[in-house]
């Protein structure tokens, strides 16, 4: 009753009308992202061991200060984040079977993390701010200060009136009998 037309005329996934599936499709299914394939238990085990190794790397990185080799104090954080991303990729690819899924599922998974990149890009604006984030900054030479250093907070004073500007223009005398707007 269902799908007799699909079986007869064939769809993208079931080319050909034969209902027997052609010998269970053993090894004949195309690897073009239109079918869901499942990994073996061995792949699960290898992925798990790789995750454990990477966890050891992450914790070991905490005790080894890499800024002795590279003149940048943020190198530890960068490598820790790279290792965390690699771990996440292992979990997503093998445990969540994104690699064996169709391309649509892969796109959905990628979009979530692309959104994270977009959000981070939107918040880069904070790196340009010179005001402290609510409380006093930790050090005077932090990026929060502008190019002229920490500027003292001065109450706003309008500029003194210059000769020739409209502020110092002579006020024309009020015409006799002219009603002023206030009345």
């Amino acid at each position, binding site marked *: 009753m269902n*799908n007799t037309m699909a079986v007869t005329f064939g769809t993208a*996934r079931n080319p050909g009308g034969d209902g027997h599936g052609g010998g269970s499709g053993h090894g004949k299914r195309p690897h073009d992202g239109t079918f869901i*394939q499942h990994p073996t238990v061995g792949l699960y085990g290898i992925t798990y061991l790789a995750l454990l190794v990477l966890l050891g790397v992450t914790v070991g990185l905490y005790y080894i200060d890499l800024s002795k080799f590279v003149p940048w104090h943020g190198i530890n954080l960068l490598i820790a984040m790279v290792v965390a991303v690699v771990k996440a990729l292992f979990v997503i690819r093998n445990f*969540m079977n994104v690699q064996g899924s169709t391309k649509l*599922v892969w796109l959905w998974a990628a979009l979530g993390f692309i*959104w994270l990149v977009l959000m981070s890009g939107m918040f880069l604006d904070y790196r340009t701010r010179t005001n402290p984030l609510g409380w006093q900054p930790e050090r005077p030479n932090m990026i929060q200060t502008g190019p002229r250093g920490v500027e003292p907070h001065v109450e706003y004073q309008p500029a003194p009136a210059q000769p020739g500007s409209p502020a110092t223009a002579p006020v024309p005398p009020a015409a006799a009998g002219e009603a002023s707007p206030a009345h």
Partner: protein
Amino acid sequence: MSLRAVTAAASAAATRGNGDHHADDHGGVMTPTLYHQFEDVEQQNESYLVGMWTFLVTEIMFFGALFMAYSIYRTAYPATFLDAHKFLSIPLGTVNTLALLTSSFTMVMAVNANQHKKKWSLINWLGVTILLSCVFLGIKGIEYTTKIHEGLYPGSFNYARANTMYLEHHDGKAGHEAKGIYPYFPSVQELATGYSLNRITPEDPRAVGVEQTPAGPFTSYQGAPSDVEYWSKRAQLFFSIYFAMTGLHAVHIIIGILMMGTLILLALKNHPYITQDYMPTEMIGLYWHFVDIVWIFLFPLMYLIS
């Protein structure tokens, strides 16, 4: 029969409109119900996965916002974050990460067991996953109890007092020099009276902004130099973010435990959701792996600041 062959045979059987429901064949073909809007089982499974990933994308947005807040404040106050993270126990955090990674592995083995129609294997793997997540929650409970004992929670935050307690517990050492004492569990006497055993008095040169009133859970900060007050406020940011993120993560773990318990109950009752189709288990597995990924990022960002 390899799993690929099993799925292909199921797809072929379903498109044939196979009327016989051999749902309880052990090692046989799983014939999920093909709903009429789908062409074949492959498309149906794909739609299940896309739906679950849609939910996971919303969860990425949920946690992503908190991670963003963390990044902004960490770049703003790096020294404060470096100082405040010493209250988090790295051995406990590593054990937690190990537990979650292993639970991810056992979850995927449970999905595998369901795909091969092995009912008791499925139940056993799910049980081990629940056990490991309970271990995670138990260790979290220990950590939270320690934080509350130190007074580092929103509402009673007093960073100088917490620093003093840290020095008392670590014999005056801090940072990498303090070894072997964390994780500690406060004794009953300490919990009851609020006094620690090696009390640092204000005359002690190691005293860091010690206030004159006795330490207690609801003592507010009084008479501090203004820089220490700001320092306390910055550290409070770190702990607010810590509690928000790990608390939200713990709620997700509890929900995951409930879901896995439901799967075990359905499997015990030979419900068609388990016997006819492996996709429900696979979708709960996707959720669990996502929770694991969040912790994979949380652990180095919160615990391993150097």
